[in-house]
């Protein structure tokens, strides 16, 4: 598996570390159901067979945090973008 880093170009898998599902949203800790939501957030996963978007760091390269869209059945990579852009999108939606 080779991952195209937006800064460094296509690099070997050994330079990257995966953190897991990028779709998870940290719940609002002040919400009344915060406890249940945090249990879901910390422990439960969709774990799809097929396209999965996951947080990944180019740890032994430029150290950027990335969102990699990848097929868990074939390891084919559909897209890679900066996680920072994702948070920008998310905060824009929230605002």
């Amino acid at each position: 598996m080779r991952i195209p880093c937006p800064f460094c170009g296509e690099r070997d898998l050994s330079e990257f570390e995966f953190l897991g599902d990028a779709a998870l949203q940290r719940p609002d800790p002040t919400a009344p159901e915060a406890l249940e939501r945090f249990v879901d957030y910390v422990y439960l996963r969709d774990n799809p067979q097929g396209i999965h978007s996951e947080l990944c760091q180019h740890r032994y390269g430029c150290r950027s945090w990335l969102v990699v869209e990848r097929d868990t059945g074939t390891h084919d990579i559909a897209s890679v973008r900066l996680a920072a852009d994702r948070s920008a999108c998310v905060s824009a939606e929230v605002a």
Partner: protein
Amino acid sequence: MFHREYSILRLVVEAARGHRDWRPLWRHGAPQSAYDAIIVGGGAHGLAAAYYLAREYGMRKVALLERSWIGSGNAGRNTTIIRSNYLLPANTRFYEWSLKLWEGLERALNYNVMVSQRGLVNLFHSGAHRDAFIRRGNAMRLMGIDAELLDRADLRRLCPAIDLDNARFPILGALAQPRGGTVRHDAVVWGYARAADHLGVDIIQDCEVTGFLVNGSRIDGVTTSRGRIRSPRVGLAVAGHSSRLAKLAGLRLPIESHVLQAFVTEGVKPLVHNVVSFGAEHFFINQSDKGGLVFSGDIDGYNSYAQRGNLPIVEQVCESAVALMPALGRLRILRSWGGVVDMSMDSSPIIDKTAIDGLYLNAGWCYGGFKATPASGWSLAHLIATGESHPLARDYRLDRFATGRLIDERGIGPFPARH
């Protein structure tokens, strides 16, 4: 029963008849329309559960559904190790019961599964590492499990191939479990299948479960590639694909699927007599009876259902192999393969009821499903037959993640890729 039992007398009689009367180990049939219980997943765990349901709980109308052929998944992809050297009481109890069942399994199944208690040797490399292993060994002995501390002289005698004076990770000693060892994995599948079949269990291969029939909050059966099959009790034993199956029932699990690779070298004369694990890296090795060295290490570290991994882990595992036993550098790897494992959020399994009455879950086996096979099947059978958790598996609850009663052997936290 004579035509079924295996014995020396039977062998003599069959030989005299020219070996014409041996029968297939299990029947191949179409599913009936309804059963008292259905087990989904024809791996070793599912087959064991079906066998114990019939033997211990007297259920005769049991179906085992497998989408491919039995033993085609992780049952045939593991490194065949059995042991019970855990630290936390929930795991120690459960895996020791499993090891005891392994010790009597061949007699129970009337089938040679080649249980070989050749001893398990876990190496340590520093004073702190030794202290942690002494603590673990004491925890085991308090539960009545065998554990011994070995020094360098013991190791030199047991396994001369080990490089005790590795410059970076010198080996100071080891914690050993003499009753640990290996079992022939495919024979476990065939042995359980044959014994379950003799007790009336229908083993249905090429039958993929595509959905669940739910009536209100109760399970009513499954839909499959070979039609609807009704049953008031359904047990899932599909580790690797637990999330995928659970999703069909509307459940979301504390599990990620990851790929774990394993390797075997060309066959050589006896070189590694025990199961040996390196303490500096995650690496474990044993030698099969055919002579091939079977070894494995870490999971690849990303979600995968692919049953094949990538090269960085191949490199890491081979580096570990050569660091531990430099002579292995002269061998060629014959095969490598990958298995898809359920990595749970605390590295321990789940055997529990679900939100749907009558639907039971056996999942989250991480690296260690094979050695758990007998106790896992036993506990799932108990759960399905009685509706209550077996005392040995009562801590493997699905709600432990919400209540905080996690069973995290290494204290890693909810990061499956790092367990």
